[in-house]
């Protein structure tokens, strides 16, 4: 695990776990678009923060994020050391832009992640958040917090930019993870490539659509 191959293996495994997380997160977020004043979303948010199984998984998720970020920094530092003197002229025609700039794309996503966690994750856990009652049971009204945040133009713009970053990050990362795991086969390569490209476009686009729709709804 200390070798460059071991480190990359860890990046691939954590990356694919985060891909699964994106699907779960998106399916939860889509409930924001239901016309029920946020009831389904608030019930879901409570479930996600109180269910013991989900709570355990969330700690694995935090660890996954940290490993993916820390190992990326370690690899990048090592990679930079591998070429102390750079070229005066470099042609980029031999590879895709996103494959060469995963670190920059990752940094965009990371900056977004910090703001995003502070606005919603922190508020949900430690407040301040308003309470709402459904059938006599109290729920934190996270929907109201989201609604306020998504009414601010700067936040919606930040969200969309970050999702664009995520799109290009996934565009390379998804298929690249399989290559690092050693899964390269004539029969499955087109499938991995197609699913990776479709995932990279559809998932971030759906994420980005939510704040945009809510913003225009609240105008």
């Amino acid at each position, binding site marked *: 695990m200390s070798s460059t191959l071991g480190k990359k293996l860890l990046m691939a495994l954590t990356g694919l776990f985060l891909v699964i997380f994106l699907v779960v997160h998106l399916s939860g977020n889509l409930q924001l678009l239901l016309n029920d004043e946020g009831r389904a979303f608030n019930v879901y948010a409570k479930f996600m923060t109180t269910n013991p199984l989900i709570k355990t998984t969330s700690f694995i998720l935090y660890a996954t994020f940290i490993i993916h970020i820390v190992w990326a920094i370690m690899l990048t530092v090592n990679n930079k050391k591998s*070429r102390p003197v*750079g070229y005066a002229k470099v042609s980029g025609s031999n590879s895709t832009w996103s494959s060469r700039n995963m670190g920059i794309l990752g940094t965009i996503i990371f900056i977004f992640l910090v703001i995003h966690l502070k606005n919603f994750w922190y508020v949900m856990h430690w407040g301040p958040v308003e309470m709402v009652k459904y059938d006599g049971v109290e729920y934190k009204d996270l929907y109201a917090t989201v609604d306020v945040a998504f009414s601010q133009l700067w936040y919606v713009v930040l969200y969309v930019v970050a999702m664009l970053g995520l799109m290009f990050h996934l565009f390379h990362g998804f298929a690249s993870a399989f290559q690092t795991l050693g899964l*390269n086969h004539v029969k499955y390569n087109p499938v991995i490539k197609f699913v990776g490209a479709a995932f990279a476009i559809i998932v971030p686009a759906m994420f980005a659509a939510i704040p945009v729709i809510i913003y225009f709804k609240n105008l």
Partner: protein
Amino acid sequence: MKITLKVWRQKNAQDKGGFKTYQLDDVSPDMSFLEMFDVLNEQILKKGEDPVHFDHDCREGICGTCSMYINGKPHGPKQTTTCQLHMRSFSDGDTIVVEPWRAQAFPVVKDLVVNRSSFDRVIQAGGYVSVNTGGVPDANEIPIPKKIADEAFDSATCIGCGACVAACKNASAMLFVSAKVSQLAMLPQGQVERKTRVEKMVAQMDEEGFGACSNTGACSAECPKEISLENIARLNREYLKAKSSSDNV
């Protein structure tokens, strides 16, 4: 053809180095890139200056010695070696930037000459098959499917030129190491040392200071022998298998 050359000049490994511009007024489009450099050096020698040092040997596209990073690409605009690149690939009046391979593991010796012994040390770490002496085995005694033999041969066509390292944004040697591991991992003769080989070669690769693989594919796109990325996936597989099951602790 009129050509302007911006060439990296560096006296020795310690020197900081820098670009020097040269003007060539009568370049034939049929010259190879190296022949154009021979003309340049004659011109420099006539002035009594130090000629540009560059590596070359067979000039037939076989040996991989002619390392030059031309206009942002190893071996220039064509996917071939520098000796097989011809001046017709450029236009009259072009400015061409020529640099040495850039990598921690390939230190500059002088001008465009770099020391690629790190590749030799990777091979010495395990890129061989130990042969016990004895009678010569009969031909075709060990049956190998044609498809496997072809694949192993494709991997074995790697000439160790270092274009993959030069092209990679991380100066990673993964394509080279993966080709050398693959050619033996696919054949029966390579089975005995299979696990130890990949462990030792990867360890040596890291030791030499090559970077990690970002799967950009630039290496394969620039490889004059068109070594495919399948080799890198195979190396990842071989390494994972070896690390999880070999007896070396």
